[in-house]
C-alpha cells in the first residue's frame, strides 16, 4: 500500500533532519564542552543509531506481515513459530540491548559522580525564586546568576534551595541535579575549554522559571586564581539581592 511507503519515507526524512540541523547552540547537549556531556553525547548517538536499526527492522517486518497471506497455518505450528520469535525478539533482543546499554551506561554514570578528588573546587549554589546565589566558601566570594570556574578542573557544585525545588543545569557540561530545600546535592562538572556557558533552571519553580538562567565562565587556572585573589579580599563584589 502506498500509505506505508510514505510513512517510512517520513521517518527517514525526520532522521535526516536530525543530521542536517546544527547541533550547536548555547544550551545544546550535543555540543559538549566537558567530560560528562561528552559521554552523554556518545551514549545518545549510539542509542539513536541502534534504535533506528531496531525500529526500521520492526516496521519492515510489520509491513511484510500486513501484505502477506499467511494461509491457514495451523495454530499449533504458529505457536511454535512464535515461540522462536519470542525467545529471539521478545526476550533476546531486549536483554542484549539492555546488557549493552548498561555495560556502557553504568561505568559512564559512575564516572560522572563526585568522587573524592583533592583538586576539586567547591562552589556552593543556593537556588531562590528566581535567581542563583553562588558562593566560594573559602574566599568568601558571593555572586548572583554568575559563576567563574577554572578550566580542566573538576568542580563540585553543592546545591540547595531556599524555597522550592529547582534544578541546576549547564547542558554543555553535563547533566542536571535538583536543588532541594533541606538537603544538599553535589554535582560534579568540568569544562574542557575556555568559554562562557549558559545554565538554566530545569525544574518548574514558578512563573519566572523561564528566566532563571545563569552564566558560567570557564577561565584558565591562572586567571581564576587571580580572580579569586582580586575578589576574595573585598567581602563581596556582586550586588546581592535581598529576599
Amino acid at each position, binding site marked *: 500500500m502506498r500509505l506505508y511507503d510514505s*510513512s517510512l519515507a517520513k521517518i527517514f526524512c525526520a532522521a535526516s533532519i536530525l543530521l542536517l540541523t546544527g547541533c550547536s547552540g548555547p544550551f545544546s547537549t550535543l555540543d559538549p564542552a566537558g567530560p560528562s556531556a561528552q559521554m552523554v553525547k556518545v551514549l545518545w548517538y549510539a542509542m539513536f543509531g541502534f534504535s533506528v536499526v531496531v525500529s526500521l527492522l520492526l*516496521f519492515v517486518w510489520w509491513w511484510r506481515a500486513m501484505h502477506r497471506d499467511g494461509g491457514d497455518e495451523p495454530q499449533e505450528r504458529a505457536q511454535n513459530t512464535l515461540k522462536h520469535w519470542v525467545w529471539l525478539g521478545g526476550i533476546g533482543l531486549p536483554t542484549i540491548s539492555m546488557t549493552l546499554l548498561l555495560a556502557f551506561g553504568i561505568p559512564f554514570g559512575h564516572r560522572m559522580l563526585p568522587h573524592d578528588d583533592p583538586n576539586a573546587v567547591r562552589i556552593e549554589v543556593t537556588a531562590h525564586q528566581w535567581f542563583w546565589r553562588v558562593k566560594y566558601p573559602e574566599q568568601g566570594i558571593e555572586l548572583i546568576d554568575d559563576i567563574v570556574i577554572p578550566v580542566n578542573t573538576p568542580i563540585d557544585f553543592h546545591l540547595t534551595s531556599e524555597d*522550592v525545588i529547582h534544578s541546576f543545569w549547564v547542558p554543555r557540561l553535563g*547533566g542536571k541535579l535538583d536543588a532541594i530545600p533541606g538537603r544538599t546535592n553535589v554535582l560534579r562538572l568540568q569544562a574542557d575549554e575556555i568559554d562562557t556557558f549558559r545554565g*538554566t533552571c530545569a525544574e518548574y519553580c514558578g512563573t519566572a522559571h523561564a528566566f532563571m538562567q545563569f552564566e558560567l565562565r570557564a577561565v584558565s587556572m591562572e586567571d581564576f586564581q587571580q580572580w579569586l585573589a582580586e575578589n576574595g579580599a573585598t567581602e563581596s563584589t556582586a550586588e546581592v539581592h535581598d529576599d
Partner: protein
Amino acid sequence: MTSAELQRRMAEVWDNLPGWGQLAAVNHTSIGRRFMVTGAIFFLIGGVMAMLIRTQLALPNQDIVPADVYSQLFTMHGTVMMFLFAIPILEGLAIYMIPKLIGARDLAFPRISSLGYYCYLFGGIIIMSSLFFGIAPDSGWFMYTPLSSAEFSPGPGSDFWLLGITFVEISAMAAGVELTVSILRTRAPGMTLSKMPIFCWYILAMALMIVFGFPPLILGSVLLELERAAGMPFFEVAGGGDPILWQHLFWLFGHPEVYIIFLPAAAVISTIIPVFSKRPIIGYKWIVLSVILTAFISFGIWVHHMFTVGIPALAQAFFSVATMLVAIPTAIQIFAWLATLWMGRPSYNLPMLWVFGFLIVFVCGGLTGVMLALVPFNWQVHDTHFVVAHLHYVLIGGMVYPLIAGIYYWLPQFSGRMPSLRLGRWGFWLTFIGMNTTFFMMHLTGLLGMPRRVFTYESGLGWDGLNLLSSVGGFIMTLGIGLVLLDILLHFKFGKKAEPNPWQADTLEWATGTPPVSYNFTSIPTVNSRHPLWDDPSLLTSIGDGEHGLTEIRHGRRELFGTEVMSGKLKAIFHIPTHSWWPLLSSLGLALVCVSLLVRFYPLAIVGCVLAAIFLLRWSWENGAHPAMAPPTDYDDNEAPLHSRTHDGPGLWGMIITLLADGALYMSLLFGWLYLWMVAPEWSMPDTSPLSLPLLFTAGALLTILVVFYHLQIKQLKAGNVRGLERNLGLLGIVGVVHTAVLVTLTAGAPLDLQGSAHDAVIFVMLAYLIFHSGLGAILTVMQALRVRLGYVGKQFPYEPIVLRPWWTYTLGVFWCSVASFVLLPMVWGS
C-alpha cells in the same frame, strides 16, 4: 413464552427510567457511554489548552499567553488529559465492554458504576471551574511540593487539584473494584480463566493495578491538603517533613498509572488484530504472562521519574534496570501481534490503520523510554522537551491511537452503523503526520537544551525552527482529530446500517445486538471456547431466542450468573440492584464536601459528610432480602441459589478487593512514616510516645474481643444457628462504639503538636484512619442487628454479616500493626 415476549419482559426490567429518570440509570451500557462521552469532551478541552500552549511557543519571545496563565495551562493540560480523559475514558470502555465480552448482563455493582460516574463528572466540573475563574492549579500536573504548598501557592489552585482529583479518583477506585469482581465472578458458565477473551486479562490487570496504584496518590493528596489547610508539615522541612516524600507518593501512583492507561489500549490492539487477521491470536499465554509481568514491574520503577533528585547511585542503578525490564513483556506482545498478522490474512480498514499508526509511534516512544531509563542520559534530558516528546509518543501512540482503533472497531456495536472510510482515512493521516511533526521535533528541541514548562524562549538558541514546526504539526493534528470526530458524529446519521457481527468477530459482544439491548443477552449461553462466535455462529440468533440460561424474569429482578473464579462453573445467581437515585445523591453530598473544603467553610463540609454518609448507608440498606432487592418470591430460579441465600457472593469479593485498596493506602501511610523517620532532614521524635498507653491497650483489648466474638458468631451463623443473632450483633456493635469512643478520647487527649511536628501529624492521621474504620464497622454491625430484626438477615439470608467479617479482621490487623510500628517500634529503636 415466545422470544419476543421474553425480550419485552427483559426490557421492562432492564431498561432505564425515561426522561429525568435517566439520571438514576445504573446499567453498565449507559454508564460506560457516559464515561466515554464525558471523557471525549475533556479531551477536547485539554486539546484546546495544548493549542494555546503551542501558539505561545510557536515563535520566540511571544507574550500571547502570560507566564501565570501559561503555568495554569500546562498544569491543566496534563491534569485533564491524564485524570479526566485517559483514565476515565478507558474505564468507560472497560465498563461498557466487559460484561458483553464475558456474557453477563451488567457489572456486579451497578450502583457503584453510577456513583463512579457522578464523582468523575462533578469532580471534573469542579476542577475545570478553576480555569474559568482564572485560579487554576499552576504548579505542574505532578504538583511538586513545596511549590504547590501553602507558602508558594497561596491561592486555591492547588486545593482545586488535590480535592478535585481525589474526588475523581473515587471513580477509578470504584471501577477498579467492580471490574475485578465482575471479571472474576460473573463470567458466563463454562468460561474458564483461560477461555476469557484476551481483552479481559488486560482489564483484570488494569483493575488490580488501580486497586494498588491509586491509594498512594489519594494518601498523598490528603496529606498535602491537610498541610495546606491545617498546617500539618508532612512535606515541609522545618517541621520534620520532606518534600521528596510527595514525589515518592506521587510516582508510586504515577508510574503504574502509565500502564493503567496502556494496558486497556493494548487490550484493544490484541482484540482487533486477530479479528482482522482472521485467525486466533498467537501466543495467548505469552500475552497473559506479559500483561501480568508488566503489572508487577510497573510498581517497581517509580523512581525513574526522580533520577535527578539525588538518590543514592545504587538505587538509581536498580530502578534503571527495572525500568528497562519493561521492554521484555512489551516486546513479547509486539511479537505476538506480529506473528498473528504474519500467519493470518490481514485485511485493511480503519481500525487497522490506527493499529498500524500505534505500532510506529509506540515503538518510537518505547525506544526513547529505554534511553531515558539510562541514568546518565536521563540526567541530561530529564525535564526537557525530550521527555515531553517521549511521554506524548507513548501516551498518544500507546493510548489515543488504540482508543480510536477501538472506537472505529466497535462503532457498529455502539450505534448499529458503519463509519465512512474516506473521512476516516483523512483523519488518520492528518493526525499521524501532525502528531509526528509536533513531537518528533521536540526530541531535538530537548537535546538542544530547551527545558519543559518555559513559557517563552529567546531567539537564536537553535530552538526557533523546531518550535515553529512543532506548532504547525500540532494544528495539523488538531485538524485530523477534528475529522475523526466529524466522521464519528456524521456516521450516527449517514453511516450505512451494520449487519450483525460486521467484522466477523469471535467474541460475545457482537451477540448483544447492534446497537445492544439493555440486558445484553436474552439468554446466557454456556461458553466452551475462547472464540464463541467463530465456533458457534448460531449463537448470534439463539441467544436472542432465549435458548440458553437465566431466562426466568417473572420475579422482576435483575440477575447475573455467578460463577467460580477459575473453572467458570455456575455457583449462584447474583441479584443486582435496579436503577437507583442513591448514587447521585451520595455523590452530590460528596461534591458538597469537596466544594465547602475548597472555600474553607468547614461547617458545611460536615453537613456534606453527614449527608453523604446517610445516603450511602441508606443505599446499603437496599440489599439482601430487602423488598427493593430480593425478597422471597414464587419465581426463584432453579438453576442456582440466589447469592444472598449463600455464604459467598459479589459483595464479599467486593469487600476483599476494597480492603486490598485500603491496605495499599495504609501501606503508603506506613511508608511515609518510615520514610520521614529515616530520611527527613529535620525529623524529630519525642522520647516517649505522646499517646496514652493504657487507653491504647484498652482500645486494643476491646477490639480484639469484638473481632474474636464476631468470628465465633459467623461460625454459628454459617452452621445455621441463628439463636441470639440480633442481640449478639447489637452487643458487638456497642462494643465497637465503646472501642471507637476510647480511640477518640485517646486522640483528643494526646498532646499532639500538629502544626509543629510531622511526627505528631502522621500519628494523628494514623489515629484518624483507625477511628474511621472502627466507627464505620460499629455502625454497620448495629445496622446488621436491625436487619436481623426486620428479617432481611437470618437463617435463610446469612450472607451480609459474612461480608462484614473481613472489615473487622482488617480493622484489627491495622490496629495492632499501627501500635507496633507507630508506638512500639520508636520505643524500641528510639529516635
